[in-house]
């Protein structure tokens, strides 16, 4: 590590995806927003795929002598989660601030995200007051209502890209795929303290056009992912087994009904499609059940890498003022 790295306290990671604004303008806005914060900082722009124009702008910024700006170029578009993790690898700060690459929030409010980190581990931005028509607001309400129903967490804006957190959070979560949207939920599962901070929405954060069915599919899949990850990661058979067993049970009931009809009322069995339906149900149920067992086998064989719990602290007196961090003592326990 160079000397510059050693001094950085706050790393700002900006993943530049499909939607991006004039970086120069955005950078100036964020910098002025962070002026009140007395932390040495660095800016890490992660270009998720080729962005020739953005790259040129950033190179100009650097050549003008702006210190502490790092640009990471990914060869193709990997998605925001991967971009964040790539940024984290370059980040030197103990605090991580991720910001959207377009005018989503009012730059003047950025510093507000860092205040709650004194007591919390993660602070999630929340655009408020927020513009948007009736349909859009309804869509958001339904989505966040479903998330609240599954997780018990009342969140308002999972789509907001402005988040502040301690470095450890991002390191432990190790995001992939579309998990950046679920960061708050996943962090809460790991036992981190999560708060929401209301930020003013930028005047330029206007969504033009209509949401395509694909976006809705994304939302539904997000909720399903949360549902599965939150409830069943360690007990997959509870999930697959329940669906499988009810299908199989329904199939068996239909078969019994058919057999009963055949034996008692002498109703012909062979020319009834219900027989096909019931055997399909039985078979499908068993398949699901088998999938669940396979999933259990995977969990079992990987159990040593999965940890159910995070110990916040091991407290013991009087040894060496005795506040031990969990990862230190963990190595001791394994050896």
């Amino acid at each position, binding site marked *: 590590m160079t000397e510059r790295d050693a001094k950085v306290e706050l790393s700002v990671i900006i993943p530049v995806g499909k939607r991006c604004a004039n970086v120069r303008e955005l950078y100036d806005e964020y910098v002025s927003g962070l002026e009140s914060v007395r932390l040495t900082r660095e800016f890490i722009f992660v270009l998720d795929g080729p962005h020739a124009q953005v790259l040129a702008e950033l190179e100009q910024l650097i050549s003008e002598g702006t210190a502490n700006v790092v640009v990471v170029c990914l060869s193709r578009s990997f998605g925001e989660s991967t971009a964040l993790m790539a940024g984290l690898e370059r980040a030197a700060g103990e605090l991580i601030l991720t910001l959207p690459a377009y005018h989503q929030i009012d730059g003047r409010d950025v510093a507000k995200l860092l205040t709650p980190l004194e007591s919390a581990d993660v602070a999630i931005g929340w655009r408020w007051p927020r513009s948007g028509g009736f349909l859009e607001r309804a869509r958001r309400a339904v989505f966040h209502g479903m998330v609240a129903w599954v997780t018990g967490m009342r969140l308002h804006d999972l789509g907001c890209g402005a988040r502040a957190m301690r470095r450890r959070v991002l390191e432990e979560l190790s995001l992939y795929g579309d998990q950046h949207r679920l960061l708050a939920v996943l962090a809460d599962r790991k036992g981190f303290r999560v708060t929401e901070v209301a930020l003013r929405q930028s005047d330029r954060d206007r969504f033009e056009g209509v949401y395509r069915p694909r976006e809705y599919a994304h939302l539904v899949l997000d909720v399903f992912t949360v549902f599965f990850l939150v409830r069943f990661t360690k007990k997959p058979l509870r999930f697959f087994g329940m669906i499988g*067993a009810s299908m199989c049970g329904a199939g068996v009931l239909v078969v019994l009904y058919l057999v009963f009809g055949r034996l008692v009322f002498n109703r012909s069995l062979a020319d009834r499609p219900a027989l096909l339906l019931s055997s399909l149900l039985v078979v499908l149920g068993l398949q699901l059940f088998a999938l669940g*067992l396979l999933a*259990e086998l995977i969990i079992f064989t990987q159990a040593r890498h999965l940890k159910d719990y995070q110990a916040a602290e*091991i407290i013991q007196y009087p040894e060496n003022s005795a506040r031990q961090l969990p990862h230190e003592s963990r190595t001791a326990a394994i050896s």
Partner: protein
Amino acid sequence: MRPPIKLSVIVPFYNEQDSIGALHTAIVDAVAPLQIPFEMVFVDDGSKDQTLARAVELARKDHRIRVVQFRRNYGQTAAMAAGIEYARGEVLVTMDGDLQNDPADIEQFLRKIDAGYDVVVGWRHDRQDKLVSRKVPSVIANWLIGKVTGIPIKDNGCSLKAYRASVIKNIPLYSEMHRFIPAMASIAGTRIAEVKVRHHARRFGASKYGLSRIYKVLLDLMVIKTLTSFAARPLLWFAFLALPLFLIGTVALVYALTMSIVYHAATSLPIAGSGVIFLTSAFILFCSGALGELVYNLSGMREHDFARLTQRLDTRAAAAEIQAR
């Protein structure tokens, strides 16, 4: 240099501010006369009351206490697993934090471990709980668990248990396994003993870990069976599951074909169809088993690692070997 710790008493607490002090006194009164170096590991499972503060207060006065603090409530299995992980004794004793177990029983657990058993399970033969809501379901569940796992333990729900640390620290414990620790430990071929323990009615607070739904227990049993008996041979297990489907499918298909070929009757579509469905399904199940083999093979988990935990050398052979040198 202090002598190595012989005994760790592990207690998970969840909102037990009233009992933690009394339990600490009871443990010390029971264990101190045994004249062995011991420690207590108190795991605070994200309590919302003063449990953690009181545990830390106790730890300040009694240096044999180690407090593990969770960031939030993770459940009893996780608390037990954390206690096992952070304990440093040779023998680990786990017990409930609600004073229903009696620390005076620890001595007989230790004697059993010294006699060569790896896991000692408590049996609340004189249980102080409600008959219908707790005792009857428990008798049925224990009978079923014994049948399925092949380990006839009369009381799986008793938290008071003792383990040889070298064995239990290498057994994977996760999700809601705390009910099945003896069964899970059996994958390492552990020698299991059972001792009668005293059981007191609850003095403080309400019971937190209530009766769970039946389907959960049944599914968990299926999991335990799969893991303990067939983890290392998944293809066999899935082939066993596929067998009935295969038989039904074959019979249906043969019947439909005979009817049409031998008797020249019209082929019965539903029967031939369901025969085909059952046969393909049996085939897919079989392939799932092959996938299971792949999973196990790549996982790096091997049975002999478990076998090594409990193996013993024949003393005469070992002695002869030493002499030969």
